[in-house]
C-alpha cells in the first residue's frame, strides 16, 4: 500500500513538472515580446536575452504616436466587425432554412458548406484580385470585407446548423402548430436559444479575421488602408535593426486578443470544440 502511495506521489509530481515545462514553453515567447518591447534598442543589441532592468515606454510610445499603428488597428477592427456581422447574420438565416426549412437539397447545401470550408483562400486570390481591381475596390476596406465574408460563411453555416440540429424538433412543432409562421418561430424560439452559440461563432470568426495576413497584404497596399497584421510585417522590414520597436508593435497587436481571451475563455474553448463534437 505504501509503495502504491509513493508511486502516486512520484506520478503526480512528474505530471506537474511536465505541465509546468509545457506552460513555460507556451509563455516564454510572450514574455520575450513584452520584455523586449520595454527595453531600449541599445540594451537589446548588447544582450538579447537580458532582463529589462531599465524598462522604457519609448518603443511603445513611438508605435502609438509616430507610426500608423493605431490607424491600422482601426482598419482591422472595422474589417473584423463588418465581415463577422454579415457572415453571422447570413449564417443564422441560412442554417435555419437548411435545418428547419423544407426545401429540397438542404443536406447538400450543408455538405457543400463543409467542402468549401477546406478550400485554401490563396487559390482564390488571383481571380478575386482581378475582380477587385476591375471594380475599383482594391485598396478599400470593402474588398477584404467582401472576400472575408465569403470565406467565413461556409464555416458559419456548418457551425450554426450543427447547433440548430440540437434544438428539439418538438419545440418547433409545438410553436408552428399554434399557428406561428416560420419567421416568428425563428425570432421567438430559435434566436434566443442560440445566444451562446452565436456569441461563440462571432468570437471564433473575429479571431480568424483579426489574424489574417495573406489577403490583407494583397488587397490593401496603401499605407492608409493596411490592416494591423500586414502592417506588422512592414515593420519587420522597415526596422530590421530595431527589434524592440517591432516587438512593441507585435505586443500592441496581441493585447486585444489576450484581453478578450482572459475575459471569456469558456467561449473560446467551447466554440472551437463544438464543431468537433458534431
Amino acid at each position, binding site marked *: 500500500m505504501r509503495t502504491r502511495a509513493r508511486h502516486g506521489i512520484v*506520478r*503526480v509530481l512528474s*505530471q*506537474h513538472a*511536465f*505541465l509546468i515545462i*509545457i*506552460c513555460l514553453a*507556451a509563455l516564454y*515567447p*510572450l514574455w*520575450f515580446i513584452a520584455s*523586449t518591447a520595454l527595453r531600449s534598442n541599445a540594451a537589446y543589441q548588447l544582450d*538579447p*536575452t537580458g532582463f529589462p532592468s531599465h524598462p522604457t515606454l519609448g518603443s511603445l510610445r513611438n508605435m502609438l504616436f509616430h507610426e500608423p499603428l493605431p490607424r491600422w488597428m482601426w482598419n482591422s477592427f472595422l474589417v473584423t466587425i463588418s465581415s463577422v456581422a454579415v457572415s453571422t447574420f447570413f449564417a443564422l438565416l441560412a442554417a435555419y432554412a437548411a435545418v428547419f426549412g423544407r426545401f429540397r437539397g438542404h443536406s447538400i447545401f450543408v455538405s457543400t458548406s*463543409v*467542402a*468549401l470550408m*477546406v*478550400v*485554401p*483562400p*490563396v*487559390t*482564390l*486570390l*488571383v*481571380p478575386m484580385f*482581378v*475582380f477587385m481591381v476591375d471594380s475599383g475596390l482594391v485598396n478599400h476596406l470593402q474588398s477584404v470585407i467582401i*472576400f472575408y465574408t*465569403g*470565406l467565413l*460563411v*461556409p464555416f458559419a453555416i456548418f457551425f450554426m446548423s450543427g447547433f440548430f440540429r440540437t434544438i428539439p424538433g418538438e419545440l418547433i412543432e409545438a410553436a408552428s402548430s399554434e399557428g406561428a409562421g416560420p419567421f416568428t418561430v425563428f425570432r421567438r424560439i430559435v434566436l434566443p436559444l442560440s445566444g451562446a452559440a452565436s456569441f461563440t461563432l462571432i468570437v471564433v470568426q473575429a*479571431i480568424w479575421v483579426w*489574424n489574417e*495576413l*495573406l489577403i490583407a*497584404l*494583397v488587397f490593401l497596399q496603401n499605407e492608409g488602408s493596411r490592416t494591423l*497584421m500586414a502592417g*506588422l*510585417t512592414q515593420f*519587420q522590414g522597415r526596422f530590421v535593426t530595431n*527589434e524592440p520597436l*517591432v*516587438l512593441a508593435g*507585435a*505586443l500592441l*497587436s*496581441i493585447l486585444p*486578443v*489576450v484581453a*478578450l*481571451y482572459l475575459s471569456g*475563455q469558456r467561449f473560446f*474553448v467551447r466554440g*472551437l470544440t463544438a464543431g*468537433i463534437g458534431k
Partner: protein
Amino acid sequence: MAFAFGFPLVQVVRDSFYAGNFSAPIYVGLANYRGVLSDPAFHQSILDNMKLLLTVPIMLGLGLAIALVLNDRIRGGRHYQSVVFLPYVLPATAIGIAFSFLLQERGVLNTSLRRLGLGGLAQDWLGNSHLAIVSVGGVVVWQQLGFAVVVFTAALLALPPETAEAARIDGAGWWQLQLRVLVPQIRPIIELLAVIQVITVISWVFNYVYVLTAGGPGFSSSVMELYIWRSFSNGSDGTAASVAVMLLGMASVLIGLSLWVRRQTAAQ
C-alpha cells in the same frame, strides 16, 4: 457563396492558361503548368508542405499526453489548460516575428543554450536550409498544440466514467489505463483532428513561413501558398493561377478524406 467561390474557382482555371501582363494576357495553353512542374522551387514547396505533415503526429502525441495528464483531475488543471491554450489565439504574424528574432544564430535560444553549456545543440535554426522548415514546423506545433489539448480534454471528459472505473477495479495500472482504455475510446476524435491539422499545414501556414523565413534560405522553406504569392507579386499571375489549381486539387483530395472520416465518426 456562389460569388465568393464559384466565380473565382472557374476564373482561376481560366487564368492558369495565360502569361504576360495581366492587362494584356497572352494565351499559352499548358505552358504555365509545364514551367511550374519543372521548377525546383515548386518541387521544394510541395516537399516542404509534406515535411510539415510530420508535425501532425507530434502535435497529436504531445497534445494527447497533456490531455491525459489533465484528465487525471490534477490540481489546477483548468489553469494549466488556459495557459496551454493561450498560444492558439495569438496572431500567428506577431508570434512569427517574435520567433524570427528568437531563433537567429546569435539569438535568444542559441545564447541560452550556449550559456547552459549545451552549445552543441545550438543550430542556425533559420539560416540552415535543412533546418529552416523544421523551425517553421516547430512554431506551428507551438501554436497549434493548445487546440489539440482542448479538443482531447473535452473528448476525454465526455467519456462515460464506468469504463475507466471498471478497468481500475480490474487492477489496471496508470499507463495501461491511458493507453489501452482511454485512448482507443477517443480514436475517432483523434482521427478527425489529424485530418484538420493535415489541412492546416497544407493550406494555412503562409503567415508562419512569410515572417519567419520568407521561404529562405533560397527557397528551402517555401510552401505552396508562398510559391503562389511569390509568383503573384512578380506579376506572373498565370503561374500563380496554375499552382493554385494544383493546390486546389490537393485540397480536394483532403476534403474527400475528411468527409469520409466524418461519416465514420457519425456512424459510431
